[in-house]
């Protein structure tokens, strides 16, 4: 099995430990990663999508063309990349006139063409479907027995479901991330604000205090309802929000606890015996205790 790795900005520049985790875990599970040399920003919402519909699609289409030339699907660990790339593909395939305009631009600028033969897949959903929770459970060296995880699926792995290659069966009661955590031996119980937004993204850049209101509501719901040892997300933006917001909230006395946060790919890499410094070393929250527990257990 081989798949293209669409890294994305936040993963490459903010949390390269997450990038490292992907580059460790996929080969460890027997899946080769292609670098998709020359990939760019997906592009993310606040940039070209907010300026020009066709231009947005064109930049996304260029990334697709890199994967199509190699006959590969792409995987990403970032919700925004997943959303932006999936939505542009959906738009181009359902609106032939957009696709035609995009290909006109690509032809003039790079000689590339968007055909629609490659898909963007979310790394966790890809593993769920192509490898399966059972085999992943068998492959890991360290298990998470006794660990309680608060799952944070992230909006972009859910909606709009029509755009995604691997949509949840019930997008309002997502199961994939929870099952993938359970496969590692942890428990990942339901809590009532499971699908609520973390507040990262455009909101955090527009008004940090307002953005933190949302993450705080979620943290309180998690703490009160399931008291987790760890928050696990499928989205690099959620990862950054949960990992950085807690310190601010504590300073402002709006929070009196801290829950460590990891991306699922980081957790998986740990369970597959990766070097914890390399795959979780940039975390701001205190993941060490959980990491030690995992590696010790």
């Amino acid at each position: 099995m081989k798949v293209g790795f669409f890294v994305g900005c936040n993963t490459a520049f903010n949390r390269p430990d997450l990038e490292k985790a992907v580059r460790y875990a996929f080969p460890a599970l027997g899946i080769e990663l292609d670098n998709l040399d020359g990939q760019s920003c997906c592009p993310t919402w606040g940039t070209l999508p907010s300026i020009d519909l066709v231009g947005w699609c064109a930049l996304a289409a260029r990334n697709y063309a890199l994967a199509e030339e190699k006959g590969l699907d792409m995987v990403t660990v970032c919700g925004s990349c997943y959303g932006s790339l999936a939505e542009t593909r959906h738009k181009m395939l359902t609106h032939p006139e957009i696709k035609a305009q995009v290909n006109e631009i690509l032809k003039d600028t790079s000689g590339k063409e968007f055909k629609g033969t490659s898909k963007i897949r979310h790394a966790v959903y890809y593993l769920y479907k192509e490898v399966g929770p059972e085999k992943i459970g068998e492959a890991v060296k360290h298990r998470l027995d006794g660990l309680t995880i608060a799952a944070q699926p992230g909006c972009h792995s859910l909606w709009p479901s029509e755009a995604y290659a691997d949509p949840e069966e019930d997008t309002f009661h997502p199961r994939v991330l929870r099952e993938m955590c359970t496969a590692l031996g942890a428990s990942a119980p339901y809590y009532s604000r499971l699908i609520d937004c973390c507040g990262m993204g455009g909101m955090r850049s527009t008004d940090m205090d307002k953005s933190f209101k949302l993450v705080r509501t979620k943290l309180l719901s998690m703490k009160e309802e399931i008291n987790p040892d760890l928050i696990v997300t499928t989205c690099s933006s959620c990862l950054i929000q949960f990992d950085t917001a807690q310190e601010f909230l504590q300073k402002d006395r709006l929070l009196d606890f801290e829950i460590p946060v990891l991306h699922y790919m980081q957790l998986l890499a740990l369970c597959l015996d990766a070097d914890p410094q390399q795959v979780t070393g940039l975390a701001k929250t205190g993941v060490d205790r959980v990491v030690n527990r995992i590696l010790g257990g």
Partner: protein
Amino acid sequence: MSNPAEPQVINLSEAETGFPQEIAELGGEELLKCIQCGKCAAACPMVLAGFPFFNKRLIQAILIGAREMLLDDSSIWACQSCNRCTEICPREVRPFEIMLAMRRVAVREFALPTLAIEGLKSLYDVGHGVYLKEAWQSRNRVGLPEKPPSTVAFPQALQEVQAIMRKTALADLGIIPMSEAGVTERCEV
């Protein structure tokens, strides 16, 4: 502004009646299907965080032609693109697309936040909307090469991205400098 507790009279006689059409042309085609039921607002992160112009209210403001009012407010840039509204909208209005269309209107009036300008500039200069110059250090720390295999490592790829961007509406707007020269040095990480 626009705090519901401090009402201001909206003069409907001064409304811009062509506004809905403008939005439709910039990607918000389904606008007129909206019946203002409020389902989109029920779990919208913008509503929960307290931004004045979230999906439902944005659509109503467009429908009544309150263009200036929207241009004076930065809410639209706080939309998380979560698309929960698109998923549950019973009228297939696709509120998020309308949010994006409104941003496109605002951009054409140069009503966009500094961070958005910086994002665009970064996208043009290095091929990434989000970029940290000192990232090579942390990349090194976790055992990765200094540059990811993207436009930052492949100048030819960045040239392609820039050429595409020069074919978009961005080129006419003059929000960011978009010269063809100097690609290689800018690409230095």
